[in-house]
């Protein structure tokens, strides 16, 4: 038994800083609550904001280090801070910063009165950050589950029948997905004797994919579990229900943060396989991508509830972006990040718009919170809200020059550059189909007469300064995206490129 001596330097603890900050924050909040309960939600909101900003600062610092000295390993080489990690964490934290103030609604909702809500929220962020900042299957698993478990609880805390149903569904399927994940990683471990993705890759390369069949079986399990996280067909079935069940901003948040984390991991997991052209994976991904975006679009067409429509639309967006993993070029990967940054602005904005029109209980004689009828003639009653909502819809439809157009354009371009011309066409035409259901809402808002059941005060009943601010930020980001594209693109591309993707 020789004593274990490890120098602290070699641990390179700075790599842990970004993840630790939210966790510390969570504990801090819990402690405060222990000391003196019954404090107002605004306190917790601001506290979490503070910690998130600190987190952000830590990330900036990390990105500086990255730009100087490239990828860092740390903590027994479990942590891996490369471009992808930093970029995705930026998105995660940024989106969270945009999300938190949405709790401060005019009407008080159940979850916001619990400090645990905020603690769990911060835990979740920490989990996601771990998930993206490593290429160790164990840590990925741990991060994933930490985040997911927190998320289930957050959904349930909305304290509505539907949110419980949603939570249970999400949880059960999540458990199944966890099973898949562990089984998949077990197989890879069996084949290679390692749980570090890059080492797995090396080993597989080394014996030149001798027993490809087993590798594929392992990949299938992992694909299934991440397909669940990314809501790719046929693992998407949870998404619409969960989105509908949970509160609007939470749904918006779920459509962004867990997915970017999952995207990063699947980049790490699958792209090396693509690069060592495993044709099978290419084909499967090709099919999954096309089917996901097409079918999701088609189902979104027939929805009668706006939130559910947005759920399907974000499934379709996920499929759209999944193409980047398939194409697996630097341009594609940077397109993925660009797309997701812009998407998070627009999507959070649109879900926030739903949030402000949320009523405490289901509107009488209606099965859903945000039916299309609810928005009919909105332009007459509250023009500004209508215009902003329309703006987000147009952006989601990919109408230039609004935010998401640039993402779509760059993604399609990367498909072309990658030689997937047909795919590019399919993507383009899907945006055309998608145009219809986004347009449908605009038609309701601008071209129909207001229905007597809903007055303006309903449709913007929840509005408060903080919500206004967030929506304003989202709107501005959506409109003036074209000014920011160039710096973002350069930043993203350099990061992706330097981390070797």
């Amino acid at each position, binding site marked *: 038994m020789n004593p274990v001596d490890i120098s602290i330097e070699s641990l390179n603890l700075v790599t842990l800083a970004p993840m630790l900050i939210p966790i510390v924050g969570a504990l801090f909040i819990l402690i405060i609550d222990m000391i003196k309960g019954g404090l107002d939600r605004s306190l917790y909101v601001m506290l979490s904001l503070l910690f998130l900003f600190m987190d952000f600062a830590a990330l900036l610092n990390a990105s500086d280090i990255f730009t100087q000295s490239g990828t860092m390993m740390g903590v027994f080489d479990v942590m891996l801070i490369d471009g992808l990690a930093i970029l995705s964490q930026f998105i995660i934290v940024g989106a969270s910063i945009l999300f938190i103030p949405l709790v401060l609604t005019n009407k008080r909702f159940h979850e916001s009165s619990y400090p645990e809500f905020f603690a769990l929220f911060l835990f979740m962020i920490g989990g996601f950050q771990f998930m993206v900042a490593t290429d160790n*299957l*164990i840590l990925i*698993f*741990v991060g994933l*589950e930490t985040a997911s*478990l927190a998320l*289930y*609880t957050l959904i*349930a805390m909305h304290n509505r*029948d*539907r949110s*419980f*149903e*949603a*939570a*249970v*569904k999400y*949880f*059960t399927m999540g*458990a*199944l997905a*966890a*099973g898949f994940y*562990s*089984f998949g*990683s*077990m197989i890879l*471990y*069996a084949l290679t*004797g*390692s*749980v570090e993705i890059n080492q797995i890759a090396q080993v597989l390369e080394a014996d030149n994919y001798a027993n490809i069949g087993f590798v594929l079986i392992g990949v299938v399990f992992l694909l299934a579990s991440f397909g669940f996280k990314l809501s790719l067909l046929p693992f998407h079935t949870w998404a*619409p*229900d969960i989105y*509908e*069940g949970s509160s609007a901003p939470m749904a918006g948040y779920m459509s962004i943060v867990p997915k970017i984390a999952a995207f990063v991991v699947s980049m790490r997991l699958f792209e090396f396989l693509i690069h060592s052209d495993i044709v099978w994976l290419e084909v499967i991904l090709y099919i999954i991508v096309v089917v996901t975006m097409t079918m999701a679009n088609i189902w979104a067409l*027939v*929805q009668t509830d706006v939130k*559910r429509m947005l759920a399907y639309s974000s499934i379709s967006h996920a499929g759209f972006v999944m193409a980047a993993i398939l194409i697996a070029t630097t341009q594609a990967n940077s397109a993925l990040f660009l797309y997701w940054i812009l998407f998070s602005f627009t999507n959070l904005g649109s879900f926030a718009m739903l949030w402000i029109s949320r009523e405490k209980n289901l509107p009488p004689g209606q099965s859903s919170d945000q039916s299309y009828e609810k928005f009919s003639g909105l332009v007459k009653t509250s023009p500004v809200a209508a215009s902003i909502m329309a703006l987000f819809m147009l952006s989601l439809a990919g109408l230039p020059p609004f935010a998401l157009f640039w993402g779509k354009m760059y993604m399609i371009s990367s498909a072309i550059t990658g030689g997937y011309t047909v795919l590019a066409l399919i993507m383009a035409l899907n945006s055309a189909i998608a145009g219809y259901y986004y347009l449908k809402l605009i038609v309701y808002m601008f071209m129909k007469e207001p229905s007597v059941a809903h007055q303006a005060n309903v449709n913007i009943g929840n509005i408060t300064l903080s919500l206004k601010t967030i929506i304003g930020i989202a709107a501005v980001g959506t409109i003036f995206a074209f000014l920011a594209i160039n710096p973002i693109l350069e930043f993203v591309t350099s990061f992706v490129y330097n981390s070797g993707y």
Partner: protein
Amino acid sequence: MMEIGLNHYLVLSTILFCIGLVGVMRRKNLLMLFFATEILLNSVNIAFAAISHFHGDLTGQMFAFFVIAIAASEVAVGLGLLIVWHKRHNNIDLDTMSTMKG
């Protein structure tokens, strides 16, 4: 008396996993469903243990531990949800929770 090798463990774990899958699909009782998921995870644990022994490094077992831990916490959360649901509807039948569809 035949020698028991890695493959036997793997086959066992696969069988268990399949049982778990079947359970997940067939069970209408939420509690049973959770058990099925536990079976899934534990089947994996067996495999991990065996493989790590086979490879002769501890990563596998480490993974197994983590899986156990996570399984435990999952059960905690799951049971919490289950209880709340039972309080509200005093049943834990899956088919009752399908108010959202389409």
